[in-house]
């Protein structure tokens, strides 16, 4: 008999700070810690979920706490990266009566939009956010291109919170899918090209 335990957690990285989107005490700042099993976020809330509807509630609840702001390009622009993690633990007792536990983890990462400041008209807080967003996106790109270069021995995971959290999901033994959205308008061709270039580089992981 196989038994499953499914847990969910949801965080965002806003201005290079990690926030728990499911905390009852509001979006709190959290720290990253290293353990021999990998990097983890200290005190991150996790919920045991039993049905798809439960999971959807957790996701919707967390979304309410996300940072969203209006720019000239999109009235509901995501201003943070979000990581929704689903942990599936299965335990099975084999014929010798031994208990086998397997743990699989699924990260769904919604990266904040890359943007040109001149087009979005960002100033003040929006501009500050954009600078951090672009910085962590370029670190992600850097990590990806270092991973694809066999001569490169140093991978700059530590340069941003995003790449640290995803460290074992990028280089380790994980199945990774990257979905890139592009707009069809000629007006956005420059951004479209940069998205396509970014995705092309990721292809070689």
């Amino acid at each position, binding site marked *: 008999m196989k038994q499953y335990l*499914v847990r969910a957690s949801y965080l965002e990285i806003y201005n290079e700070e990690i926030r728990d989107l499911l905390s009852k005490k509001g979006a709190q700042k959290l720290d990253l810690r290293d353990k021999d099993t990998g990097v983890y976020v200290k005190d991150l809330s996790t919920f045991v979920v039993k049905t*798809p509807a439960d*999971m*959807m509630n957790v*996701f919707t609840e967390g979304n309410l706490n996300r940072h969203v702001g209006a*720019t000239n*390009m*999109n*009235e*509901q*622009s*995501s201003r943070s990266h979000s990581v929704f993690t*689903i942990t*599936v633990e*299965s335990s099975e007792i084999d014929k010798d009566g031994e208990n086998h536990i*397997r743990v*699989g*983890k*699924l*990260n*769904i*990462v*919604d*990266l904040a*939009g*890359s*943007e040109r400041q001149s087009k*979005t008209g960002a100033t003040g807080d929006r501009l500050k956010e954009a600078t951090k967003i672009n910085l962590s996106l370029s670190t992600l790109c850097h990590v990806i291109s270092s991973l694809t270069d066999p001569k490169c021995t140093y991978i700059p995971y530590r340069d941003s919170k995003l790449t640290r959290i*995803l460290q*074992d*999901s*990028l280089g*380790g*033994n*994980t*199945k*990774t*899918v*990257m*979905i*890139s*959205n*592009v*707009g*069809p*308008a*000629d*007006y*956005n*061709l420059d*951004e*479209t*090209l940069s*998205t*396509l270039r*970014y*995705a*092309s580089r*990721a*292809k070689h992981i």
Partner: protein
Amino acid sequence: MVSALIQLFGSALNGFFHQFSALKMVTKTGEIFAQKSGDNVPKVFTFDSVYDWNSEQENIFGETAYPVCENVIQGYNGTIFAYGQTGTGKTFTISGVPKDPKLRGIMPRAFENIFE
């Protein structure tokens, strides 16, 4: 695995009337041709899969996220990234319209898949 997708939702349709001629997608071969005005030849990108505005959420999930979800249930790790310029429909791809069976995005489908 890397996929690219074009969706015509949200700001791509609202407000301005855009011209769409610089970008061509060939879903069969996974190629995208992007031609800047002034360039003689378009730049070509090839991905594992390419989805245009005729694509269905169901196929996008089935071909990209589903294999990752299955792996996770088997006890492996998986990561799905969504990336792109702001306003190109990332949120639509990820969440979609959760209550609509046709327009549901990757998240609600993945949730269901895990409990199957």
